[in-house]
């Protein structure tokens, strides 16, 4: 529901995890399956005397994102130190951006609550390094000790800050889905990796102070966290308790937010320009990065509608994930594009979502074969769905790969006319009561007899065709 009095702004931390090395050292970013503290070096451990060196590719990726988000790229950009003590921060400062961030003033289009296209303004996009990760022995409040894993320390992060343009948790979720989609189009980000996207949110009700909700660890968690916080602020207002400016922590396990500090206790991070790095003139980099920018979701959607003559909703669905869009384009070259759009957007995506798997589980070749069988009338639509489900449910089983073989093995081929006619005759004979009801004027009784036909043909008969044949048989007697 659109909530007129809800004001939400997001600060999204995105790990540029498609980079091969960290932001300021040569350590590999491929740590997700590794033991703790195996992807570290003197630089990302902040050992005395070490110095950061900017990963130029990370800056290129960041420019790519800022351009895709329609930001103005600053001519010169520099890094600052944000000073604070925490065990996951081995230098006791984070190298980040402050004044002169990489990109300013962008926007993203999302589908708003009312179904209309809505522009969400982006305040800034800046680069920073990720801290390490604390692992508590037990829960955070009960743990006897905590351990630090510095594998993540020094990973390239982008912080994307929006204006307070979002009006509901659902809109926030749409924004994040769209952002993730764009990042994957740009090939700078893999949203499936742990810690890839982390969200802080500023949220208030009209006329009230805002709370900053930190530690939302996924784009999926954001709706729950924001819904809780809105309810909390509303009920406080009803009780006459004024919201104060504060920072709250989202406890994912309990699904609640907890106040951690008020404005008076705010940190003084003592930002100052990082003296170990020099300002970067990135204006000169922009033309090259811009020229190499891939087609983005909105442009692809428009092209799909124009090129394949498919519905806008289908085009939106197909382009909402780069892998699905690429899949569709391969299939559309070898099958009727409109049929392919319906089957991929409406059926296949639903089956994938239901199983929470990606489209990598299904091949374009399989899809083309299934569409071919539908088009030639070899299988019914119902059977086609069955084939898709069977393949997905037996992923990894080499004997369940070929759709034609699946149709054969499960006897899903559309029944020959003779077989259907025989089934109709038998069904009419067996269903004396239904026949009598039909003759007495109860038209609906025919459905029972069609059901028997379908049972006898094990679903291979086309229901419409069966209906016609049963009617013919009854009326002809």
């Amino acid at each position, binding site marked *: 529901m659109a909530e007129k009095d809800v004001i939400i702004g997001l600060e999204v931390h995105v790990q540029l995890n498609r980079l091969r090395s960290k932001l300021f050292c040569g350590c590999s970013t491929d740590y997700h399956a590794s033991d703790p503290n195996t992807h570290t070096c003197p630089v990302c451990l902040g050992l*005395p*005397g070490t*110095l950061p060196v900017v990963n130029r590719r990370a800056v290129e990726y960041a420019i790519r994102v800022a351009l895709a988000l329609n930001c103005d790229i600053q001519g010169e950009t520099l890094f600052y130190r944000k000073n604070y003590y925490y065990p996951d921060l081995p230098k006791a400062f984070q190298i980040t951006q402050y004044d002169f961030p990489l990109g300013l003033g962008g926007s993203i289009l999302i589908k708003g609550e009312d179904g209309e296209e809505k522009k969400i303004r982006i305040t800034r996009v800046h680069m920073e390094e990720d801290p390490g990760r604390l692992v508590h022995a037990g829960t955070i409040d009960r743990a006897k000790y905590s351990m630090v894993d510095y594998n993540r320390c020094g990973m390239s992060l982008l912080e994307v800050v929006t204006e307070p343009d979002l009006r509901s948790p659902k809109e926030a979720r749409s924004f994040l889905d769209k952002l993730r989609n764009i990042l994957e189009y740009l090939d700078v980000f893999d949203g499936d990796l742990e810690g890839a996207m982390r969200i802080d949110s500023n949220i208030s009700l009209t006329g009230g102070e805002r709370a900053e909700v930190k530690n939302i660890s996924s784009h999926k968690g954001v709706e729950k966290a924001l819904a809780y916080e809105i309810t909390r602020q509303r009920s406080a207002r009803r009780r006459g308790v004024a919201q104060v400016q504060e920072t709250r922590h989202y406890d994912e396990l309990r699904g609640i937010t907890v106040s951690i500090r008020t404005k008076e206790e705010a940190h003084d991070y003592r930002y100052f320009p990082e003296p170990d790095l020099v300002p970067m003139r990135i204006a000169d980099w922009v033309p090259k990065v811009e020229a190499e920018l891939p087609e983005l979701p909105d442009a692809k959607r428009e092209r799909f509608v124009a090129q394949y003559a498919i519905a806008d909703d289908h085009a939106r669905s197909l382009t909402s994930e780069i892998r699905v869009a690429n899949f569709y384009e391969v299939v559309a070259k070898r099958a009727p594009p409109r049929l392919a759009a319906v089957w991929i957007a409406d059926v296949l995506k639903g089956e994938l979502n239901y199983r929470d798997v990606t489209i990598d589980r299904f091949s374009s070749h399989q899809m083309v074969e299934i569409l071919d069988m539908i088009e030639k009338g070899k299988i019914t639509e119902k059977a086609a769905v069955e084939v898709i489900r069977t393949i997905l449910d037996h992923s990894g089983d080499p004997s369940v790969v070929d759709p034609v073989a699946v149709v054969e093995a499960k006897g899903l081929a559309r029944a020959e006319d003779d077989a259907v006619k025989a089934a109709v005759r038998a069904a009419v004979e067996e269903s004396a009561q239904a026949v009598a009801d039909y003759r007495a004027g109860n038209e609906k009784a025919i459905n029972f007899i069609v059901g028997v036909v379908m049972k006898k043909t094990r679903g291979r008969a086309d229901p419409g065709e069966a209906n016609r044949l049963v009617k013919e048989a009854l009326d002809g007697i």
Partner: protein
Amino acid sequence: MLRELKEGLAAGASAEEVVSAIFEKIKRSRLNAYNCLSEESALERAKNFDKKPWGGLLAGVPIAIKSSISTKGIETNCSSRILSGYIPPYDAHVIERLKEEGAIIIGKTNMDEFAMGTSTETSCLGPTRNPWDTDRVPGGSSGGSAAAVAAGEAPAALGSDTGGSIRCPASFCGIVGIKPTYGLVSRYGLVSYANSLEQIGPLALTVEDAALVLDVIAGHDPRDSTSAEQDRVFLPHTERYLPSLTNGVKGLTLGVPEEYFGEGVDPEVEKAVWDAISKLEDLGAAWKMVSLPHTKYALAAYYIIAMSEASSNLARFDGLRYGLRLGADQDWHTTFSEIRAAGFGPEVKRRILLGTYALSAGYYGRYYLKALKVRTLIKEDFERALSAGGADLLVTPTMPFPAFKIGERIEDPLSLYMADVFTVPINLAGVPAISVPCGFAGGLPIGLQIIGRHFDEASILRAAKAYEDATPYHEAVPKEVV
């Protein structure tokens, strides 16, 4: 002198004997110049050299390293309790270079804690003594390196210079010290005190020795983003500065900044420096008075910038990953607070607190930003004085007075900070400077500071060498040499 040592080693003299003799001298010494010796590895390397000599600009030459420069496998404690026992797993860029050119690291020298001082008295391991008068300080913060070289406890040494930390002890101990142009020598591996100001540089007995060591350590390093790239591509085994030494001073114009003489300067120091200017004139240089009008703001700007950067740089020392640990751990906040309380000395704490204050919201603009603006003005002062048609080099006293007594100024930080008045502007401007011996006052050495344009170390060395050749001061030997 390094040349004689190298020639001797090349002719078959034993590196092991040279190194052993140095260790014996160090052990007999009362100077407290070292805070950690690498006797075993040094002797082993010397033995290997004797068995199968290698080449290089410093083949077989023993060298001492300031304790703020990271050495793989050798404790690097910055003379601070908080880093006691810290053994780096990597070598600084300059150490890699020294090793590549065949040098032998003999140990780490004493210093003011984290290079914060002008006297080497803030070391947690006690003060180093001046070999010319053991009741006096050797200068600082690279006091251990300077005292060791002056007393023959090391043929040459590396120091670091944030606001005079090479030139001051070179001046107080009667030797040569160079603060290179900011960006000439990689800082990779130098434990940061004030990143935007400091450089590693040589301390040596002669201009030629200092030039040779500078040849080894200068050059671009991609691991330091502030290391200069233009025309500095590192070429192994090349001598860039040594050949410039023979050019003499004919055709050079010296600028004498009026602000560096007069009030606060010891008359004997002032006289020695003017005598040096006359000597250089005799040798063919021209000279004229110049002005560096923003000099009076330099100390304030320097201390604000240095302390601000230091407050951030030193925040990482929490005892969690390396360094000092105390008893049983409590919660993280308590544990690191107690470690920092016990691990840092009073001067370091003072500078961290002042720097933290200067960077705080509401004060940043009033202090740090303003200091950066002053820094720009000071840089412009130097660029104007050293512009084409102006002076090629500037000559000044290095320190306003000779070495003071141990304990004389340590209780009065401001008077100690004032001692840096002629050295800090050079760091703020980023230009190179050398200190060479130019006389004595009451038996204590006096230093002449020669300042050049960015990356024009060659002209500085050329003038310093001409002056050295024409004067006897570098040949004098301190009392404490046993």
